[in-house]
């Protein structure tokens, strides 16, 4: 899975936001706010990656247990699918 093209990540007023650009405005109205870990996952999803690779990357980057990381990753991916930003 990966993030579809046409989304631009920007830091505005100390806040990471994702904005649809060009043709993507047709599919997505609004902006997405990302926290630090959301930003980390978003960046990883810039290229094709698997669920296992994502989880592994989070566990390597942050001092966090798998039990704690998994629900947050699942929530992120669920939100991303719901918003239609993921290419699966």
């Amino acid at each position, binding site marked *: 899975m990966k993030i579809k093209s046409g989304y631009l990540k920007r830091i505005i007023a100390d806040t990471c*936001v994702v904005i649809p650009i060009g043709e993507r405005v047709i599919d997505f109205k609004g902006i997405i706010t990302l926290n630090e870990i959301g930003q980390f996952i978003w960046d990883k999803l810039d290229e094709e990656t698997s669920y296992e690779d994502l989880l592994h990357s989070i566990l390597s980057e942050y001092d966090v247990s798998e039990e704690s990381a998994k629900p947050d990753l699942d929530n992120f991916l669920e939100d991303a699918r719901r918003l239609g930003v993921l290419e699966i």
Partner: protein
Amino acid sequence: MSGGDSNTDVNRRAKAWNEKDTTFAAHAASRHIPLAGTFELTARCNLRCKMCYVRMDQSQFAPGQRELTAAEWIALGKDAAAAGTLNMLITGGEPLLRPDFPEIYTALSQMGFIIILYTNATLMTPELLALFQRYPPTMVGVTLYGACRETYAKICGDPDAFDATIRGLEMLTRVKTTLEVRCTFIKDNMDELNALRAIANRFTNRFAVNFDVFKAIRGATSNVADCRLTPAQMLDLRQKNHEYYDGLNSETQAVIEDSSPIEQTIDTREYGFSIEPAILGCLAAKSMYWITWDGKMLACGSFSSPYTFPLSEGFVPAWNRLPGLFEGVRYPEECYSCEYISAGCPNCPATVQSESGSMDMISSYICAIAKERWERSKA
């Protein structure tokens, strides 16, 4: 999962924005981030609306005065994006009049802005339709000046512009954008409120009305005083529009841009009014700016001055210098003891400057509106 304090901060902010406790604009203003910008691409227009506050022909330009080039607008767009601009209004004059509009628009649409375009729609072509279909603005606001050819002749000097506007609106309904029809009311179209709304509703339920018409500024020469509504007419028409929407038992969306009364006591929680320049009771120069067709940065488009020069001094230095230019500015002395203020007065440094020529000089027109509101509030 632990992401540190920054995660908590962002989560808290996002929650507050979702719940409307505060706004991204207020957050940006508290950091003096230029979140919302306007690019006024030109003062020229193919129409000659008698109340226009900004329209100029090239022959009216001062010596040495010129429109920014496409390359300059694109460079300013890049600077604005880097400085934190998210909301971008593209307006004029009539922006579609510029032959290089597609070049400017295409570039801006790739920079990560939420774009709103204001146009009279009369110059829509299949090529522009294809451009907007490919890169849709988030919203297009189309000005509609009259409900028939005769009114367009009286207001805009061109009856054919009515048909051209309707054609343009029809084309824009084929763009995946939010369409808004915007009407400014003067004596010539004040009897067409319902007819204009009916036309607008053929294309969209977003119908924005403006009854406050202030004098032409920045070199424009319209004779606004002769055609605008009297305060009584203005308030009657506003009431009539409210009554229409009040009478609807539906979810029809009323978009009423009617310069709601400006409170003299201000809400710091919602919009950060305590941020300098405190004399401006809105987000102008706090998180909002306007760049004129000839490259000046203003706090908002209703000002003639003060301004900075984002191209020559740099975008961020120009933005950072703007609030300080309001230091020492005060309302006209009479305003501080005026009893009409309590009922709402449309005075702000920009409207006062438009009307009287100076931010500290009282305007009889603004006072008359405030008095009319006050008398109606007593009744």
